[in-house]
């Protein structure tokens, strides 16, 4: 079967440091895959490798059957790959709606205005369309970051700790919201998240990282029961 996204034996080394060392993961259409692992396990580096932000030392990234390993950030986005950022990354001095509409326009959407309004409404940002991004509260900026990633009908969405810095209630709200959005917009999601409840709550499958390698993957229940995972990660949390 063809996956919407696939990495084969992807490695990124910085000098002697193996940030990623042979990572192979897949994403099926409409699937939500959660990525978990302790700090420094290489979760964010996987996202950087897939989006083209960091060059690969080894391996291959395939998007919808096409090898995109040699392509830049912009070309990968044009092929339907979109991402949000762990540290909020929005256009500080631009009005909210204008930047979301621009992101949609750049993806060749027929009606970027309507697309932007849709996404803003779904993320409860519709009343803030004219506000300057820098004037928004933290939670609103997080949602704006997501809105910029969601417009333009991406096929694959990479979310790098979208709940970072939110309260438990906000996180769970946003998680349910994201799940509904992914279903409605037919987008496959790779979700990196610290919050275990969120990851196990909304993911169809879960991948566990440790020291740049995959140590387990499967259904949430299986992963939760895996003794190696308990030892490496959950042990300290449980």
């Amino acid at each position: 079967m063809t996956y919407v996204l696939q990495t084969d034996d992807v490695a990124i080394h910085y000098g002697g440091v193996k940030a990623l060392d042979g990572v192979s993961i897949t994403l099926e259409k409409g699937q939500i895959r959660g990525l978990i692992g302790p700090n420094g396990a290489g979760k964010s580096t996987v996202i950087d490798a897939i989006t083209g932000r960091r060059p690969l030392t080894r391996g291959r990234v395939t998007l919808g059957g096409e090898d995109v390993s040699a392509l830049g950030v912009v070309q990968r986005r044009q092929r339907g790959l979109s991402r949000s950022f762990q540290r909020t990354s929005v256009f500080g001095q631009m009005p909210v709606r204008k930047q979301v509409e621009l992101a949609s326009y750049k993806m060749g959407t027929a009606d970027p205005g309507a697309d932007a309004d849709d996404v803003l409404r779904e993320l409860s940002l519709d009343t803030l369309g004219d506000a300057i991004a820098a004037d928004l509260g933290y939670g609103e900026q997080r949602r704006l970051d997501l809105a910029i990633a969601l417009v333009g009908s991406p096929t694959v969405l990479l979310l790098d700790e979208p709940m970072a810095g939110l309260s438990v209630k906000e996180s769970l709200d946003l998680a349910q919201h994201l799940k509904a959005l992914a279903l409605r917009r037919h987008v496959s999601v790779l979700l990196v998240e610290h919050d275990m409840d969120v990851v196990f709550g909304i993911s169809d499958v879960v991948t566990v990282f440790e020291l740049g390698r995959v140590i387990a993957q499967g259904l949430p229940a299986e992963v939760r029961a895996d003794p190696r995972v308990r030892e490496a990660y959950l042990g300290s949390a449980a």
Partner: protein
Amino acid sequence: MSSLSVSRLMMLTVLALALGLGVSMLVGSGTVLSLLTQATIYAVFALGVGLLLRQNGMVSFGHALYFGSAGYIVAIALQTHAMAAEWAILVAVLGLTLFGFVIGLVIVRVPGVAFGMLTLAVGQMAYLTASRSRGLTGGADGMSVEWPNTLFGVSSNLLFKPASLMLISWTVLVLLLLGLALGLRGRFGAITEAARDNEERARFIGIQTLVPRAAVYALSAGVTAVAGVLAALNTGFVSPEALHWSLSGVALMMVVVGGTRVLWGPALGAAIYFLAKDVLGDHAQHWMAIFGTALIVVIVFAPEGLSGLLNRLLGLKPSGGAGHAGSASAHH
């Protein structure tokens, strides 16, 4: 991007043009008219420098390069009878815009202070070249611009009257403001703002940032070149001083005092610079100390510049085109 509607923008333009016509006809004093002309020419210069800060978030210490070079290109073209004056003007402005684009493709990649230093270096190279090429440019003495008897069908008797020069400069300023206001409210404006605020995220929404940023640099070079042509028309003379970095510095001060939150901010800064200097009269030998103090006061108490302050006092909506206020986003 301005929050003004197109029809209001047109109305303001017509009003501004009428104001210029009125002033040029009603003000009898040649001294006052020539002061206004000078202020207007520098307003165009500052508009060019401000455009770079507003749309690219970049500070140039070398825009005198485009101001002085425009004058030299016209002067040399006329002296060598290479082309008609009208063509020389066109070549100066378009040629420098194109030059700015090519240079821009290289230097806008360089961030922050290093970019400022590069602009300074390129500008000073032009200054030294003009100072040393005695044969072609008259060296440090400068050279006169031998305007023909008619320009664009207007006789030089009429053209070089103080009132005409003032009217021409003002009209050019107003039309440039209109053109930029209209041009920047579309996609190009939004794309450059996105690249300015957060270049990395801009790439992640599919924007190739280099060309738009170089285009803004080119546009700002072109606007500054227009100011250089106006200055050559006004004084009939060009010297290496017009290329010197200190002139770039003065233009930058006008931009900071005026602010870049609104498009006309730098023009306001230039007007204040010249009018205040004139009002001070005899104390003008301490001018730089006085203006320097004013600069500090503005930076501390109204970091958006006087135009931003005015806008706030008048209760207008802040526009999306802020220049250097910094973004809340993560740069890596």
